[in-house]
């Protein structure tokens, strides 16, 4: 695993997520992308920096223990 030291990683609640894409350019390691109707966070790339969490307009992103 490339980023084994990340204690937390971001997860998305797809019930809340509107697929607007705000979080994508905010992610320093570019761990988030959209695939049609799904937002995908790559757990192995996420560094747990939380930069995506507060800007989500609907609060769909949260941190969980890796």
């Amino acid at each position, binding site marked *: 695993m490339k980023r084994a030291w990340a204690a937390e990683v971001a997860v998305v609640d797809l019930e809340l997520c509107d697929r607007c894409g*705000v979080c994508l350019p905010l*992610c320093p390691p570019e761990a988030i992308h959209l695939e049609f109707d799904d937002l995908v966070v790559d757990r192995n790339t996420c560094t747990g920096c939380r930069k995506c969490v507060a*800007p989500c*307009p609907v609060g769909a992103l949260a941190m969980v223990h890796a």
Partner: protein
Amino acid sequence: MPDVDVLVVGAGPAGCVAAWETKHAAPELEVVLLERDRAVGAPVRCAEGVGDAGLREFANPDGAAWVARKITRVIFIAPDDTEVKVAERDVGWILDRTRFDAFLAGEACAEGAELLVGTEAAGMERAPDGRWDVRVRGPYGDATYRAKLVVGADGVEAMVGRWAGLDTRVPARDMESCAQYVIQGIEFDPDAIYLQFGRRIAPGGYAWIFPKGVGIANVGLGMVALKGDGRNAREYLDTWIAQRYPRGARTAYTVGGVIVHTTVKQTHTDGVLVAGDAAHMINPLSGGGIVNAMKAGRLAGRTAAAAVRAGDTSERALAAFHASWMDLLGEDHLKYYRIKRGLEDLDDEFFNSLARTVNRIPPHERTLGRIFTHALVRHPQLIPVAARFFL
């Protein structure tokens, strides 16, 4: 594997105009325009306002089916609800983006571009001969398009730039998180757009009312989460609307992001151009991006046509795009960005007293130039902000 000359990813204003302009400049080229959503122009993630002069460079809004409302006034609202009317003629338009984007796509197709909706670019790699192999998923299954040139007009997500190795990331302080309702059955001046500022209303951004008709408006806000109190954009908006329009019917809802940064350092690399929101070509003061995107799309289309025709799509050959964009608007955006950063240091009380100052100017003399002069004399805190425009 289909071979194409130019593959445009994203059929918004930047992509449609890029495809249209490429075919217009070089009709012999094969141009394919991809749109991930099943309909061009939907879902709308936009307040839909455009300036009159910029729009007219591309299309005539008079009587057009893709216009929702003509705007002739701007009303600024200070944090304490003091309203300042700035009367101008032909300020701008509120579009119907669903119809407008479809109109632009239609113009591109009329020039001979091929549009594929419901079709997503999933990744791209460099082919041995220097062209780009773009993996595409759509209603007819998977395919790989081999393109001499790819135009990334894929909006805030900016995946094409990322795949091509361009840095399109955004610092958190320069991302505005936005939420918007279409509200029906409310009272406001249907010929005016309203912009309200305030730390408690929309920290780092502003709230807006953009009329779509009498009694119907896009009511939304953009805020910078770093400057907020922990609530998200939708929660800020719900608070504002509860105070202002508790009885309106919320008939639609959308969220999105506006990048209030400056143009990415590099908008081109071998065989790739990025344009519009994907390249952060947004006015960082207003957050406006539609006309910027169309202007960038036009420059991208012209550069693409010339480069493919000449058989040289190298980074060096495409540098004309970046240079022409910076001359046209990119350098101005650097100035606007400095002003934006200066205004961030001023508090709500400053804007309340500025509004009262401006309201002492008789309405018919209330031009932007006069407002600016009065403001500088009475509010010397603005001088460092103004100075940044010239530095």
